[in-house]
């Protein structure tokens, strides 16, 4: 018999999840291959970007912020600090173009793949100074994520 969960239970759970993420930390990587974000996506489906100057944004022990979107009624979880510039830039000359299709969050300590997303359109990296920007929202939880 499925029970309809209360707001208390959802909030309790998300706060616990936030704590787990703090312990695990996370890394943000960009993907240079086309992939389809889905529940079953694994790291084997991803080819990390490797253009000159590229490196994953890694944070260990950093807190996330959980806030309630009072307008939409959903819970939003995002890192509570900014990456250097939310942008990965080419730091030197590159020998050929590299197309960036999306990005992903994975556990910093565990390496577990948490979530993936595609850019609105693939971004071609051509030369020094080109960059790829990505939003910082990690996950959004609607009221119906737990019923």
């Amino acid at each position, binding site marked *: *018999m499925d*029970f309809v969960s209360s707001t208390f239970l959802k909030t309790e759970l998300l706060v616990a999840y936030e704590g787990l993420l703090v312990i695990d930390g996370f890394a943000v990587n960009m993907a240079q291959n086309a992939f389809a974000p889905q529940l079953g996506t694994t790291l084997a489906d991803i080819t990390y970007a490797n253009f000159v100057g590229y490196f994953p944004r890694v944070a260990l022990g950093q807190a996330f912020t959980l806030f309630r979107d009072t307008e939409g009624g959903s819970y939003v979880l995002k890192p509570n600090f900014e990456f250097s510039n939310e942008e990965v830039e080419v730091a030197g000359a590159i020998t050929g173009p590299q197309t960036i299709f999306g990005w992903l969050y994975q556990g910093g300590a565990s390496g577990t793949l948490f979530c993936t997303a595609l850019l609105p359109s693939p971004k071609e990296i051509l030369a020094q100074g080109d960059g790829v920007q990505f939003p910082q929202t990690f996950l959004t939880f609607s009221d119906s994520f737990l019923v």
Partner: protein
Amino acid sequence: MQPTFEVFNRLSLLLAQDTGSLAPAANPPKLHLSKQAFTPNQNNVPADFLEANYAGYAAIACIVGNQLVGIDPLTGERLVEMKIPAGGWRFPCTGLGNTPQDIFGAYLMNDAGTIIYGAALFESPLTIDTIGQVVEVDSVRFRFRFSGIY
């Protein structure tokens, strides 16, 4: 973003082991029956329910500690299920006091009776009016919806 199964695995395990709600080491939650119609929703409060009081009725305490996690074989959704206590979730009628009584559903509350964790309706109200009748809840389960996280 699109979460992976791993997110749901972790969430379900966290909830099943959450000492602040479903899995305390002592004073576990209790399952109650309501003799008042209600609408299950996330904003339910104790005042939304009127506890059954037919002869033989008593709220049932859950088992302390970690609860169960599982995967629905039909949908793949992650589940958290309260361990079934000895004797099951059974509420027998042992006398005719306070009968007939219609039972509309069940709700799970903390031991102190101040916080609702969840509620569910029976398909239709059950009328208790005979000694030996039993209201039985097959399981107390919470379900994670894939579409609810993005």
